[in-house]
């Protein structure tokens, strides 16, 4: 129940584990609740320096609360939160952290100034800022520099806020759902920037609820109901949620036959339409042919995210956390 049980998928990446004497993030047995609602339930989390970590979880899993504590915006009711072996607030004031928060309705930028002015202010708050031209080139916002902050679109403002997060060349970068307002092209550029920052040795922690965005991380931690339910390299997690969804139309849908097909975990029938969840789509299709089930319009897709979370949370250690 309490303490930090290890839910790591496998321990095979020991050589990249420790860079420097202390971890970038050290979260021990952290409890945080908003009144009666428990947001973090004895959460344990360590992030090695230089690591890129994805914090994956459905809405309300505790991702934003985790960020809030990591940045020292809030304090846990119990447990300890350390960033670079000191209190988060301390690390923040020393200019070693940069962050992009989730944004509500506003732009998160100061009204009535040009983007360059706002960006320069944030740079000047840090002891060793990135030169403006380097920052602008890296984040691709040169076209925005002379614009007034209140005239930016949501996606543009987000790019400026990302530039602010890295303006001080911080060791640790925290990004809470960084791609939320970005279009496909902006996302691609964004992840390339993250890759560069990671190569330079920055530690990056980002939250997402898109399973495919975890491809950009060295390690993925899945949290649900305020607890870590899975922890490991992205590929391992993806394999763990390798459920595929097969849909097709058939004349004689016999649930008994369908349920016994190889790999099938779940059967849904809607008239002549069939949807199967399978852990091995290839084997299921072969078995369909072998058993002589007629089918047309066959489609195989990845499982939906909700199902992926369910797969992870059912066999993870999160099952006991119901009594919140």
């Amino acid at each position, binding site marked *: 129940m309490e303490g930090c049980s290890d839910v790591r998928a496998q321990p095979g990446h020991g050589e990249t584990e420790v860079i420097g004497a202390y971890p970038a993030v050290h979260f021990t047995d952290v409890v945080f609740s908003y009144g009666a609602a428990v947001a973090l339930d004895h959460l344990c989390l360590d992030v090695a320096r230089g690591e890129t970590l994805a914090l994956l979880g459905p809405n309300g899993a505790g991702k934003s609360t985790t960020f809030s504590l990591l940045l020292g915006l*809030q304090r846990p009711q119990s447990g300890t939160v350390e960033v670079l072996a000191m209190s988060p607030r301390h690390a923040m004031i020393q200019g070693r952290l940069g962050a992009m*928060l989730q944004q509500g309705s506003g*732009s*998160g930028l100061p*009204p*009535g100034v040009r983007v360059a*002015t706002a960006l320069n202010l944030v740079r000047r708050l*840090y002891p060793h800022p990135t030169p403006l031209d380097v920052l602008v080139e890296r984040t691709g916002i040169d076209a925005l520099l002379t614009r007034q902050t209140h005239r930016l679109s949501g996606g543009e403002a987000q790019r400026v806020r990302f530039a*602010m997060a890295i303006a001080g060349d911080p060791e640790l970068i925290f990004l809470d759902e960084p791609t939320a307002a970005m279009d496909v092209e902006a996302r691609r550029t964004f992840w390339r920037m993250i890759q560069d920052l990671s190569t330079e040795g920055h530690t990056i922690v980002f939250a997402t609820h898109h399973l495919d965005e975890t491809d950009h991380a060295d390690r993925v931690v899945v949290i649900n109901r305020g607890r870590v339910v899975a922890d490991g390299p992205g590929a391992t997690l993806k394999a763990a949620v390798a459920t595929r969804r097969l849909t097709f139309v058939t004349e004689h849908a016999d649930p008994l036959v369908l349920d016994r097909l190889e790999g099938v975990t779940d059967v849904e029938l809607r008239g002549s339409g069939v949807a199967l969840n399978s852990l091995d789509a290839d084997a299921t299709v072969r078995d369909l042919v072998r058993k002589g089930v007629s089918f047309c319009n066959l489609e195989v897709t990845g499982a939906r995210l909700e199902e992926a979370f369910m797969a992870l949370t059912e066999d993870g250690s999160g099952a006991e956390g119901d009594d919140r």
Partner: protein
Amino acid sequence: MIGLVAFGRFELGRLLQSWKFLAVTVGFPVIFYMLFLNDRNPGKVVDGAVPWRVYLMVSMCSFGALVAALNAGGTRISGERACGWARQLRVTPLPGWSYVTIKAVVSMLVVLPVVVLVEVVGTTFGGVHLGVATWCELTALLWVAALPFVVLGVFVGFMVNAETAYPVITMLMFVLGYFGGLFTPVDHMPQALQTMAQVLPSFHHVSLGLALLDGRAPSPAHWLVLAGYAAALGGIVIWRHRVEESRGLA
């Protein structure tokens, strides 16, 4: 420290580049002054033995200080809190208390030139002639005594949401202006309003200036009320800021 200076310069620059802010803070006191200037007999005596033209200049200095302080704080702070900028600053190396502090310091800085401007209008058009020492003394007095106005501006910015901040600021400008005796001397008002003026910071602000120019020792009540406003409103702002910080909202 470097960060504080950078933030202060940024804030000041932003204020001085705001066309709206400059129009209101310069326009209101100067235009009102010009309108009132032709309104009454300039030699008429008010508040004991103060000539009307002197009263008019001091009261417009007070009004200018009030307008500048409320507009530098109020709507801007509540807007920045609503759009998330105040929160964004919390994830920079800037210490948590510096946002409020710098806002107040910058408000104080913009009050000073407004007071001086009204004095310049007073000596060029208003027929007020004082010695250099008295000008300096008057300016310093009205400036320092404007602190409760500045704190009131910050207070509105923290307590009122972005949509209502503007009407609240406008209302405060005219309520404190009129009932504090900045448009008509309080001793020309009905008794009930004279009593009410005693609890308004604007009345005590203008009274300090008038007492100085009239050669009287100012009543300690003026300083007490002004200090009380600054302390009480400032205390509420600090309390609110702390609560928000502990909830991770600030």
